[in-house]
């Protein structure tokens, strides 16, 4: 694991205020090696940027971030979590991209009395019946973003939709979230193979069905393949494409003009107009050459949340930090974030479109707000 001693960075900066004797330790777990390494890299960049912005401190205390590479394997994640908690004795474990990895480390970390903050995944068991007070989400619950899309299409009067997602839990969750608010005609609900590269067959069937709209969830490389082939098959003439977690700042560099006009919903966009987000996006672009993705924004928010929690609590005690976070009002790139009773965010869900910015770089732009202060659907099942 990589130790990034921010105490050293802090010393190089001019500080006012009293430096505390203790060092706050944060164990940040993400996937740095292997094919998903891009995402982990984004999160790492964002965390480092956050630490720069806070002057190497969290809540006024000297801070150290230990990065842990989970290699996208649940058993490695579990082992790392144990090490972070038992050996490095971190005050907070944060990060985790994937739902299955989060499920694997959720119990051991929360059980040990260490605060676990999620930067991305939000599987429903953790939001509902298997919830634990030591878990706080700084991202979203998996169903929320597609729910926004469902509501938007329902309100916009879209008559028929063709659904496509990969055949795994997240794919099914996305479609379930969508159907919660969309009551129009579902022409077809197609589950493609996980990791599928060529969608020509499905696109042929889609064209024959001529749906008014097509809603897809195809994260990562699958999304790049899909949108490319959609465009090449000329399907823009046939149906309007909507997506979640598919056309975003991570895939746009590979798609560029091809994805222009694709509409998606998301809880964040680089053009969200608040001070923290403007500073974050500008500095991220300057430092790393390209727009940050929502992964990066959520990772940044995670560190800001820890900073806020320790500052308000006056210490890095788990229960004290948790109490502060549960109250909400956390300063993030999405504004002041409110919290649901299960410690998942209550937040706006925005409508976004893929556009070219003034420099010709592809990015997303907010074109409307679908939900204000949207809460997830599982809080009622959660009894701390």
């Amino acid at each position, binding site marked *: 694991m990589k130790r990034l001693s921010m105490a050293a960075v802090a010393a190089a900066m001019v500080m006012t205020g009293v430096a505390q004797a203790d060092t706050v330790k944060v164990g940040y777990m993400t996937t740095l090696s292997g*094919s998903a*390494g*891009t995402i982990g*890299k984004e999160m790492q960049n964002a965390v480092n940027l956050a630490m720069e912005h806070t002057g190497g401190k969290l809540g006024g205390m000297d801070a150290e971030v230990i990065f842990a590479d989970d290699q996208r394997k649940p058993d490695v994640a579990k082992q790392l979590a144990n090490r972070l908690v038992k050996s490095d004795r971190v005050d907070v474990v944060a990060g985790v991209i994937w739902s299955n990895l989060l499920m694997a480390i959720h119990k051991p970390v929360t059980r040990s009395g260490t605060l676990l903050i999620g930067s991305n995944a939000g599987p429903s068991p953790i939001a509902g019946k298997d919830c634990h007070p030591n878990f706080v989400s700084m991202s979203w619950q998996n169903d929320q973003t597609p729910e926004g899309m469902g509501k938007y299409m329902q309100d916009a009067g879209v008559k028929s939709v063709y659904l496509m997602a990969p*055949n795994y839990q997240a794919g099914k969750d996305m479609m379930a979230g969508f159907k919660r608010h969309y009551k129009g005609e579902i022409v077809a*609900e*197609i*589950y*493609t*193979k996980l*990791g599928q*590269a*060529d969608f*020509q*067959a*499905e696109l*042929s*069937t889609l064209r*024959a069905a001529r749906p008014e709209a097509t809603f897809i969830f195809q994260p990562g*490389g699958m999304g*790049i*393949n899909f949108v*490319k*082939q959609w465009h*090449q*098959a*000329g399907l823009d003439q046939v149906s309007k494409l909507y997506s979640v977690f598919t056309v975003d700042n*991570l*895939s746009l*560099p*590979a*798609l*560029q003009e*091809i994805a222009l006009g694709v509409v998606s919903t998301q809880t964040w966009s680089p053009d969200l107009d608040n001070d923290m987000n403007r500073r974050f996006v500008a500095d991220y672009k300057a430092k790393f050459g390209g727009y940050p993705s929502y992964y990066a924004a959520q990772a940044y928010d995670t560190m800001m949340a820890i900073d806020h929690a320790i500052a308000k609590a006056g210490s890095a005690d788990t229960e004290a930090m948790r109490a502060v976070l549960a109250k909400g009002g956390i300063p993030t790139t999405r504004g002041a974030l409110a919290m649901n009773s299960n410690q998942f965010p209550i937040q706006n869900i925005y409508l976004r479109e893929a556009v070219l910015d003034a420099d010709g770089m592809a990015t997303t732009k907010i074109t409307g707000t679908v939900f204000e202060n949207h809460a997830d659907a599982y809080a009622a099942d959660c009894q701390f």
Partner: protein
Amino acid sequence: MTLILLLEQIFNGLQLGVTLFLIAAGLTLILGIMDFVFLAHGAQVMIGAYAAASLTALTGNFYLGILLAIPVTFASGYLLEFLLIRHLYRRSHMDQVLATFGLILFFNELIRIGFGPAALFSSLPASLSGFVTILPETPYPVFRLLVIGVGLACALGIHLLVSRTKIGAMVRAGANNEAMTAALGVNIRVLRRLVFAAGACFAGIAGMMLGPLTAVEPGMGEPLLILSLVVIIIGGIGSVRGAFIAAILIGVVDTLGRVLLPVILRSFMDQAAADGAGPALASMMVYILMSLVLVVRPSGLFPPKG
């Protein structure tokens, strides 16, 4: 599912099939002639895709990019055989599995370091971005037709090479009985190197065809590798003809399976169950097919005799 749609899907299956064939052809010869389990064949696909994408970016011309990428891919295969593979022929299958597995890791990381982990931007020139109406009301992307064309041309080329030329005769003899072929004075070492390089080249061409359609990223070859292994098992190891027939068969079965299965299941299962079982069964289809073939013909459909 109208007849027109069915025909279009068969076309799609054909395109998948010829792509699989390009990859499987080299693999079946490597496995058949050299008895070498080359798990890193998927990496050759990746190398071809990256070569074409970067040369296209460099020259600004798609066709030039591909033209230049072909010898690059051939050379990479030639070099790999010379540097490493030839030391592994005498080792057990297990050792070959381990070594080529290590090779996969190495190549993926090399590409990741050289080009970054994110997918490369690759697209088609305007001349290839249009449509052709192959069937009533069915615009079909020109590029995909090109892929089918290239695949069939290569298949014909390989067939002519293997059955009409002297080199081809040596290759066939080698697939049948390597020791005897060597005894007849054929320079087996150079033959192996050429076969290996040719296999890499065809796999690379598959990668170049796939590049504009899919994401050019590290590890893009692995899923195709498994499918190609299935193709050559069904076709019979060492048989190019078998590989072709099996590849088309798998391409069509996989494609039709994916689109027809959910529909078929829905007619006697409820929606939710069909939506769950359909994709799972579709993923398994190819493996089920292979297992059936192996039960009936344990050496594949067209094993070279001897």
